[in-house]
């Protein structure tokens, strides 16, 4: 089952996918472009992985890490499918990162990797934008790069874990204005989903609804105002997002 959270005609609904359309919790069936898409999970604790694909680490001239490079995100940064993401006017290099997002289904502490999938509720797609101009070498990558408002689109669907036979063998693709720019496969992760759950739960408690963004493969390019960016993961979903400029946020009637 594919689940979504959407707003439709002034109310927030849970919805499920039905033949490419949305069936709301009250039974109505609507087209996907008639709704406002919200993040499919209300984010609380969100982990993100840096440099978790060897090719991406190489692309950025980094040695592959020997321990997962984990950082945290706050709820402010998340927006849903078809949302707008702001590119500040002083940015010279802002790139998307197509990532498989793992949503936890129950409390996890000291979980062994062989049991890790029992704790997963489902999967969705995230686009973890980075503005490289703001990178500083303190707790890198810092929140000014990674936790900006609107800079982490997520969705459209939360796909039930049982519907994905092997989450470690899924193709990821990014298209900018319809052109394929990034392609990889989750099998190339340095630290697999079970290893990440084992690692994180070895030192802290993960709770239901917590999300792990598992990192991105190579193929990153600068994206400009007006670009439509589609991050897509096989069997999980196709997340559409548009880059907008400061003027969208500075318009006033005063």
């Amino acid at each position, binding site marked *: 089952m594919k689940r979504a959270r959407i707003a439709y005609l002034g109310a927030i609904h849970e919805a499920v996918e039905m033949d490419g359309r949305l069936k709301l919790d009250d039974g109505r069936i609507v087209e996907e472009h008639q709704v406002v898409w919200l993040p499919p999970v209300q984010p609380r604790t969100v982990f993100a992985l840096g440099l978790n694909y060897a090719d991406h680490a190489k692309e950025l001239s980094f040695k592959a890490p020997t321990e997962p490079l984990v950082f945290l995100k706050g709820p*402010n940064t998340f927006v849903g499918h078809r949302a707008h993401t702001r590119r500040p006017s002083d940015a010279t290099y802002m790139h998307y990162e197509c990532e498989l997002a793992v949503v936890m289904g129950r409390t996890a502490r000291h979980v062994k990797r062989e049991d890790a999938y029992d704790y997963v509720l489902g999967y969705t797609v995230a686009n973890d934008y980075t503005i490289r101009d703001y990178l500083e070498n*303190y707790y890198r990558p810092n929140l000014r790069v990674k*936790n900006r*408002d609107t800079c982490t689109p997520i969705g459209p669907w939360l796909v039930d874990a049982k519907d994905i036979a092997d989450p470690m063998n899924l193709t990821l693709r990014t298209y900018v204005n319809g052109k394929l720019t990034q392609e990889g496969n989750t099998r190339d992760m340095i630290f697999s989903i079970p290893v990440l759950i084992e690692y994180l739960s070895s030192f*802290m408690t993960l709770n239901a609804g917590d999300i792990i963004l598992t990192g991105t493969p190579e193929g990153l390019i600068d994206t400009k105002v007006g670009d439509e960016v589609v991050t897509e993961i096989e069997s999980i979903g196709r997340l559409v997002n548009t880059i907008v400029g400061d003027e969208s946020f500075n318009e006033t009637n005063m």
Partner: protein
Amino acid sequence: MRKVKIKFRGMLQVIEAGVNTANHIVELQGKRYDADKLPLDAPVSGTIYGVLLNYKGALATLGNAVNEPPYKVAPKAPVLYIKPANTVIGYGMPIPLPDHVPALEIGATLGVVIGRKATRVSEEQALTYVDGYTVVNDVSIPHTSLYRPAVSQKSRDGFCPVGPWVIERDAVVNPDALRVRVYINGELRQENTTANLIRPIPRLIAEITDFMTLNIGDTLLVGVPEDAPLAKAGDHVRIEIDNIGILENTVVHERELYKEAK
């Protein structure tokens, strides 16, 4: 009496009470209680954001290292991190000491609780977005490198005691001139003042909300002073901030906590 918000263990909502910060007496529905005797929980519920190296002395302690690899230059913008939900505990609750860790770094800090959604606010308006203040212990496993996010050192269960209450904003005349003291087993081990912040509170709020929204209920930790003391198993930690409150917790071996839970 000052107006505060407190939360009892097992309750979802915060409630309003009065306190006398000088003697830690809480007044609730006309009755007076010693704060020590109340089952207090952390009085906050949003996201907790910390700021690295925001005390002049803390940055100075790094010395010329800021100009050398891997840092290469001093921070240009507030360096933030998140204390996730699993870290938050209340007044009097035990701070778990993980196995194979000899002692924990005690991060005494003022918590600024946001009262309304703060997006791109000016320095002049910043304090009007504050609901109140609390005392926070931003506990860490000691670490020397500040190059990568310290998630495994700062995000462990119970690593963020908060409390005992959130005191109303107007009870604090100048949040940028509050003395912060840490006592371990009754002995004064650290003393500083928020007057030494590199970015005072209004400026911090303005610079942060320029790129990320602080939501109602979020808490901003203004920074941890240099020379953070260490506490080992059995140590009683007491953090005092002038006019705000006193936060007390004891460090306990994690394995003993789990044993008790069984």
